[in-house]
């Protein structure tokens, strides 16, 4: 084991480019593709939404994806190390992203646990036809109002026990490492997810009323294109859907071999993610068309998104459709698989960051990271107030975590550090799809404008009235307090010294990479002689910084 020696453990790597692509798709395709996109598209003009959606994909989604790939691959480190190598004072950006992943991981796991239980419930229609809404909130979650009970400590076993199982599974995957854990899990789960979802879509299309659903989904409302809010929602959706700007793609691309076609791979990931969304839109709206017909209403009356779509509308469809149990098992099974492949990518951001900072080996870091996260996750989300905490944390971390860090990161990298030309050079040096000046313009100018607009809109809406009608103390802690704490903690973590055994101090592989590519030494490597060597270096200079 690497821990037994004084030598820095070598950086892990994906087995091949295809494993990386599949893992990146696994990360990008998550719950949002299945339960968010169909409704966002429907609301935003149906078929007409394709125009803002494609614009957002091509002008913001893909450029930001390349931005993350370029940073991770050029600086070859987890988010904090990659940003530190870019410039010492950029390190907090990396930790900010890591802490965002901490928040997301603790609540993401519980949604997977719910979906896992609903896979089982679907097989037996446990909720009882007609009782789907009450079953979810009252019988299953035992939801309590935070305004009345505060933060509950009442354990809900039917949520808590599957949540333990979810954590055990992801901990095992994480402990096995990048190649044997993350890579292999994605190699198995992604094809399975695709096949399951394809069967689900085909089955939904044969339900009576399915065509009415598709009609509602694809009929264009051209007037929506004149509404800036629709364009904003397209950019917002693409941004969250591709999992850009919170460290995942930086971390994953740092595990790629040195000579890899970055942009070519990124295009496959981006279009596969969108391809899955279109498939989900067809499947979900075909099923909603059936639901509307069965209830004798319009599709508009049953269309919904998020938790309401998954845990109330879909169980209703499962109850009413012939062969509903199969639809339910496929749908919730797909949610579980899509969720697990995303959760492991979120955890990898945290594990990789601590591995780099502390110079620890894989298993030790994995356990040090995941066990406390699992405990926090259990404490907050296996109780009766889980839904309120989840809803609030999700809304705030998305707006003032992910979106804020993305805005700060593009401004810092483009306008303060002037690193875009270096990133273009790196991307174009090895890629089949050249980016050039247009990319710099999109990332340096369009992205900050769009992200700034979205952030200000969010800020206004969340300040003007209390989010979700929750009490002030509750929003102060789990909303505003949490997002501010992320920034404070990121600054604190950046101030802590890097271990003498960490990659920042001693990384012969990185030095060799810089020499081979004829790159200038950067902030961290400037004291290291640029001679390619395979000899392990002395770590004495680690003590000085």
């Amino acid at each position, binding site marked *: *084991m690497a821990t037994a020696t004084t030598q820095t*453990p*070598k*950086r*892990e*790597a*994906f*087995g*091949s*480019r295809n494993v990386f*692509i599949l893992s990146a798709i696994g990360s990008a395709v998550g719950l949002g593709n299945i339960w968010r996109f169909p409704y966002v598209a429907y609301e935003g003009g*149906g*078929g*007409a939404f*394709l125009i803002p959606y*494609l614009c957002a994909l091509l002008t913001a989604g893909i450029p930001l994806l390349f931005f993350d790939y370029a940073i991770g691959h050029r600086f070859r480190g987890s988010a904090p190390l990659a940003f530190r190598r870019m410039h010492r004072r950029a390190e907090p950006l990396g930790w900010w992203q890591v802490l965002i992943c901490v928040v997301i991981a603790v609540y993401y796991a519980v949604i997977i646990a719910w979906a896992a239980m609903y896979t089982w419930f679907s097989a037996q229609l446990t909720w009882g036809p007609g009782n789907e809404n009450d079953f979810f909130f009252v019988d299953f979650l035992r939801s309590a109002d935070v305004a009345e009970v505060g933060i509950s400590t009442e354990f809900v076993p039917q949520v808590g026990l599957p949540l333990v199982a979810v954590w055990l599974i992801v901990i095992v995957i994480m402990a*096995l*490492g*990048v*190649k*044997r854990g993350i890579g292999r899990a994605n190699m198995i789960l992604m094809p399975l997810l695709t096949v399951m979802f394809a069967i689900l879509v085909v089955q939904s299309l044969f339900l009576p009323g399915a*065509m009415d659903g*598709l*009609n509602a*989904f*694809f*009929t*264009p409302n051209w007037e929506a294109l004149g509404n800036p809010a629709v364009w904003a929602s397209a950019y917002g959706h693409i941004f969250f859907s591709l999992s850009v700007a919170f460290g995942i793609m930086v971390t994953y691309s740092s595990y790629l*071999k*040195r*000579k*890899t*076609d970055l942009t*070519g*791979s990124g*295009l*496959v990931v*981006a*279009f*596969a993610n*969108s*391809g899955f*969304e*279109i498939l989900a839109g*067809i499947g979900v709206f075909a099923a909603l068309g059936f639901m509307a017909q069965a209830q004798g209403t319009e599709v508009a009356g049953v269309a919904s998104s998020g938790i309401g779509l998954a845990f109330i509308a879909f169980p209703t469809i499962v109850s009413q459709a012939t062969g509903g149990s199969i639809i339910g098992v496929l749908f919730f099974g797909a949610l579980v698989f899509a969720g697990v492949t995303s959760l492991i990518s979120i955890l990898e951001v945290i594990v990789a960051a601590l591995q780099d900072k502390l110079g620890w*080996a*894989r*298993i030790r870091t994995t356990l040090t990271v995941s066990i406390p996260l699992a405990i926090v996750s259990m404490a907050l989300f296996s109780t009766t107030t889980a839904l309120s905490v989840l809803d609030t944390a999700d809304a705030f971390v998305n707006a003032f975590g992910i979106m804020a860090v993305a805005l700060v990161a593009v401004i810092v990298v483009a306008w303060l550090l002037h690193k875009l030309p270096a990133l273009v050079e790196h991307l174009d040096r090895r890629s*089949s*799809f050249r980016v050039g000046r247009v990319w710099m313009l999109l990332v340096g100018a369009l992205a900050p404008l769009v992200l700034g607009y979205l952030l200000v809109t969010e800020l206004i809406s969340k300040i003007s009235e209390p989010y979700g009608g929750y009490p002030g103390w509750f929003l102060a802690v789990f909303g505003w307090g949490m997002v501010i704490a992320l920034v404070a903690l990121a600054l604190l973590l950046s101030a802590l010294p890097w271990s003498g055994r960490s990659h920042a101090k001693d990384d012969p592989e990185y030095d060799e990479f810089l020499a081979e590519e004829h790159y200038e030494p950067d902030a961290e490597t400037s004291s290291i002689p640029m001679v390619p060597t395979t000899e392990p270096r002395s770590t004495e200079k680690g003590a000085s910084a």
Partner: protein
Amino acid sequence: MTITAVVMMIIAMVTIWGGLVAAIVNLARHPEVADSEPAPPVEL
């Protein structure tokens, strides 16, 4: 389904799924370079 809905559905499928196929074809034309890098380390 109305004609416009069908047309929009086809356009959506052709652009997105077509984009995916084009991206995969482009990648397949640029196979991974079997370079002289050392093999990835054994984990654990």
